[in-house]
């Protein structure tokens, strides 16, 4: 075996509990090394240690055979380690260009060279085919998917020897992801070591040379990807024998009663005259490229943004109405798991219990204005159990949860609430395979109860697996709707690109 | 009262009528609001003789604002400024500039520092009472009710305020003459609530004190409340300075022994009259006018 580029020995990290326990790991130059594990296994923590963002409790690291113990991120970057983190960390008030160049602004005597700044950002963006992003735009104005792409573009732009990508594709659709993979292949050929975390195992199978699997903070094994099936990966991650999920067959619970009918929703150029309907018991998927306007559509229907036009009907005979504030939607029985849990899904510094019960306090846990603590605790711990939430206790602050577990808390909030119509915007973003199954089953059982469900996802496989129908949005229009049975990946992708084809042609 | 409102807004509109600007300290203070009311009453009676602009500052230590007011009044084209300076030194240069711009300046209430006036080479007539004499009168009256060797405490005004220092000196000399010891002397910044806190502490630290001398009536009010909540009403005597209406009632109720009246309502009037006189006869050498300070006790209300 050739000398490792990076090797870790006996790495341990303790917070209140031990999250990494005596982990060994090595990375070669010119390989893509995937890190796998269920939510909370410690993958992000391991990467954060390598990137100098947090110090290990014990253990040693070697880079090129030299002892390596970065005191901070800057020192890690100096040694050639770059990271794209799981949680978005752009600064919304600064422009895209400033964000990309933050720690290496082109300057003379502290004065920013504006032209050069813009130009360098432009080049970095163009390189990963993000020509449509204006580098002068405040980063906060970009959607989640775009923000993730900007972060990736930033990391790719920088000279490095080790590149760490922590769930880079969680908000990306097929096209952008493919583009990213091409880039990673090229970097691998240049001899750069890449650590890649993803819960999309087919991606891993396609891309990675080796995988290392963590379970509950312990190193389980490191293997060559070749000859390792995704089912085997799941088995190693969970410690159970490979599941037989692929054998599971789809079952529809769709009824004839329409639960919600949205008509002619428009907003600026982002959503253009979109209509759709969803039946009780139906799972309705919406696919599309990043920025296609799917999230915005859900927000408009939910009353989170005010639409230029559009109306909706609840049930078969309801009169047309429009929600002006999410509380009207929620009162009418709608629920929405938002895409950006950090900015509008969760109250990060507060406890799991607080987050899970907030939407249902008045309707379920209040007596005379007082909170019924007992009932609250019981219900929340039931739902937490149902979702297999990994946490110390329900009082733990949600910030300290792993990304996937945070997502589960965001879902838990609406399960506790018991709505009739569920909007899921990227419901499994950052969730591990096993939990993802659990969430699919959960969505299925919601459907079985006759709930109407709308799922927006950038992971097409997810939609193919769970939905009765899939609609496709492209550049703000809903261009096609397919029913189970008459769809194919090709036709869906074609539809997703259709509006862009029209423009360039 | 709508008349009153109108009077306050009359700006300099007639060119043959002089405009007098009255610049006071804090109008939130009873003393100055009385002063303003007196000035406005006088103006109403003599509305054909002059126009009046009255201005005050946020609190008694807002020097910067008072200096700015002098500038602004000069800019507004007034003919005379009657000022109760918030500080006896800091206002002199600004007033000198006003005089150089041809404005007549009269100093009321708080005397400008003679040394600085000399340095700046201006002379400004002073119209007002002698605070030290007034405080001495109050102190002497109090001393008559106490016996030699008794202990008392003093609530001072803001240490930077000239009249506060004068009053403190007046109290001190009265106590010294009578052989009474001041066991504690602290500033309560002219404020009722602060005086309440400090007087309460004085009473628990020095249970033996027989009297509290407050450098203004607002602080006397705080001291009265402190004495009451310490359960020592009737046992600790309080005196103040300024004769505000609230304290007049307390004197009637015999919860305050005495205060001093420097006739705030007339003070500005004297100043305005002096200013008008000078405007009428620019060549006359302006002379200082000492206004009376009277001791107020329960006997003052007897008739």
């Amino acid at each position, binding site marked *: 075996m050739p000398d490792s580029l990076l090797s870790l020995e006996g790495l341990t990290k303790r917070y209140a509990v031990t999250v990494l326990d005596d982990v060994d790991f090595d990375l070669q130059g010119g390989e893509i090394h995937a890190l796998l594990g269920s939510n909370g296994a410690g993958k992000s923590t391991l990467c954060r240690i390598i990137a100098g963002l947090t110090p290990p409790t014990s253990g040693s690291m070697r880079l090129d055979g030299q002892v390596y113990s970065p005191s901070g991120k800057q020192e890690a970057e100096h040694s050639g380690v770059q990271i794209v983190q799981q949680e978005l960390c752009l600064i919304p008030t600064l422009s895209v260009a400033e964000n990309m160049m933050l720690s290496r602004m082109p300057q003379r005597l502290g004065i920013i060279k504006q032209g050069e700044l813009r130009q360098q950002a432009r080049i970095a963006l163009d390189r990963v085919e993000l020509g449509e992003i204006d580098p002068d735009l405040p980063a906060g104005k970009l959607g989640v998917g775009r923000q993730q792409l900007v972060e990736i573009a930033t990391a790719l732009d920088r000279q490095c020897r080790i590149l760490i990508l922590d769930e880079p594709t969680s908000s990306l659709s097929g096209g952008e992801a493919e583009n990213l993979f091409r880039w990673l292949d090229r970097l691998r050929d240049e001899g750069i070591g890449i650590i890649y975390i993803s819960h999309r195992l087919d991606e891993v199978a396609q891309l990675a040379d080796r995988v290392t699997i963590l379970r509950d903070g312990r190193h389980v094994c490191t293997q060559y990807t070749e000859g390792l099936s995704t089912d085997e990966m799941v088995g190693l991650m969970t410690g159970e024998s490979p599941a037989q999920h692929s054998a599971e067959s789809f079952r529809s619970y769709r009824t004839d009663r329409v639960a919600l009918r949205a008509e002619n929703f428009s907003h600026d150029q982002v959503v253009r005259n979109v209509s759709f309907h969803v039946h009780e018991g139906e799972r309705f998927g919406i696919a599309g490229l990043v920025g296609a306007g799917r999230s915005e559509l859900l927000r408009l229907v939910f009353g989170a943004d005010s639409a230029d036009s559009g109306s909706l009907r609840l049930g078969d005979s309801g009169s047309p109405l429009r929600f002006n504030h999410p509380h009207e939607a*929620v009162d009418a029985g709608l629920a929405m798991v938002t895409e950006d849990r950090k900015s*509008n899904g969760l109250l990060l*510094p507060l406890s799991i219990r607080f987050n899970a019960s907030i939407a249902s306090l008045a309707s379920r846990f209040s007596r005379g204005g007082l*909170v019924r603590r007992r009932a609250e605790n019981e219900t929340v711990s039931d739902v937490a159990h149902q979702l297999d939430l990994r946490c110390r206790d329900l009082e733990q602050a949600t910030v300290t949860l792993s990304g996937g577990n945070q997502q589960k808390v965001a879902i838990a909030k609406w399960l506790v609430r018991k709505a009739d119509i569920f909007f899921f915007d990227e419901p499994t973003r950052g969730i591990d395979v096993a939990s993802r199954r659990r969430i699919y089953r959960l969505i299925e059982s919601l459907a079985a109860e006759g709930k109407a469900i709308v799922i927006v996802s950038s992971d097409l496989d997810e939609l193919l697996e769970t939905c009765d129908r899939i609609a496709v949005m492209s550049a703000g229009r809903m261009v096609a709707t397919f029913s189970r049975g008459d769809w194919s990946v090709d036709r869906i992708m074609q539809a997703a690109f259709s509006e862009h084809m029209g423009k360039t042609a | 009262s709508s008349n009153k409102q109108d009077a306050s807004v009359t700006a300099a509109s007639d060119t043959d009528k002089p405009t007098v600007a009255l610049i006071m300290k804090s109008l939130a203070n009873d003393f100055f*609001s009385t002063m303003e009311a007196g000035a406005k009453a006088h103006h109403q009676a003599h509305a054909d003789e002059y126009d009046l602009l009255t201005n005050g500052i946020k609190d008694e230590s807002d020097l910067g604002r008072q200096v700015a007011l002098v500038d602004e009044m000069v800019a507004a084209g007034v003919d005379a400024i009657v000022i109760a300076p918030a500080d006896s030194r800091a206002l002199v240069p600004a007033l000198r500039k006003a005089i150089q711009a041809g404005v007549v300046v009269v100093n009321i209430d708080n005397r400008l520092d003679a040394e600085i006036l000399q340095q700046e080479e201006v002379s400004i007539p002073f119209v007002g009472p002698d605070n030290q004499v007034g405080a001495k009168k109050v102190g002497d009256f109090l001393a008559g009710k106490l016996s030699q060797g008794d202990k008392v405490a003093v609530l001072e005004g803001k*240490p930077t305020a000239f009249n506060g220092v004068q009053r403190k000196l007046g109290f001190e000399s009265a106590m010294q003459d009578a052989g009474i010891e001041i066991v504690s002397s602290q500033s309560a910044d002219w404020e009722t609530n602060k005086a309440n806190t400090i007087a*309460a502490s004085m009473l628990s630290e020095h249970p033996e004190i027989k009297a509290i001398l407050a450098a203004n009536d607002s602080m006397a009010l*705080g001291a009265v409340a402190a004495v009451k909540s310490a359960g020592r009403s009737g046992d600790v005597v309080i005196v103040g300075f300024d004769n505000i209406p609230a304290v007049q009632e*307390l004197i009637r*109720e015999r919860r305050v022994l005495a205060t001093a009246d420097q006739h705030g309502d007339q003070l500005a009037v004297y100043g305005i009259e002096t200013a008008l006189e000078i405007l009428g006869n620019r060549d006359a050498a302006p002379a200082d006018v000492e206004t009376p300070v009277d001791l107020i006790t329960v006997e003052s209300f007897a008739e």
Partner: protein
Amino acid sequence: MKRTDAVRAAVQYAGLVGVLMILILIFGFASENFLKAATFVSIANQIPDLTLIAVGMTLVLVIGGIDLSVGSTLALSAAVLGVLMADRGWSLWASIPCCVLTGAACGLFNGAVSVLARIPSFIVTLGMLEIARGATKVVTQSQTKYIGSSVEIVSEPIAGILLSPAFLIALAAVLGGQFLLSRTVFGRYCIAIGTNEEAVRMSGIRSAPYSITVFVLCGALCGLAGLTYTSKLSTADPNAAIGIELSAIAACVIGGTSLMGGRGNVISSFLGVLIIAVLQTGLAQIGMTDPMKQIITGGVIVVAVLLDAARMRWSDRKR
């Protein structure tokens, strides 16, 4: 469960209680008369106003707002009380509701304008600070209104328990405020709003009514504070409580309330009030000169928060 709750509470308040004890000990050594009942009666007499305001301020800070107008609102309520009682000859019981309603009205203005027009409460309440003070002077014609004994009963010790109604009102406000914040749906919403208003909105909760109510509550508490303040001095003072907003915010922040919203504890704010009151009384009692009083007060405020921060970090590490 109960047991650990109590332990957790004890640890939570340990830092502030420690600071308070240290101060009392120091003053006890420095002045032979400090550790006597009279001192504590005098402190108990001083704090109701600041306590009431600190309770309201804590709530406002929790939702991510700020109320700079508390002092002026207090003064305006007191002025209304003073005019009604001294000039119109109303009874205390008839005047109290007017006094509290005046405060609540100021709070309603603050809340409605800042929440509905979505402008920072800092600026609305700064405006209110000027407006209510001006109105106070109009109402009282800038004269201190002497009311006399009819209002004093509120701050006179109740026979037998040595505590005044004012103190009991303040204590009730502290306990009620803490209960509101930690045990009611309303309190939960307040904390949530202060943490992330957008997330609250997306959870289907209208935040505006809650935010406005908090400002109204704060205003009403200022009205009550106007009552206790007036009864303490037997006079309605148009210059009452100038600058009290900074003391109140200081008490809250000493007690660990965040200015960014989402975090606050009314009992800790009360401990903050006690620290400030003990410091003021103690320094006056040892007869410190004015400049030294200020320097020491400033120093102690910083040190108290430093110690509390250090303790929190230490106990976080231990867990």
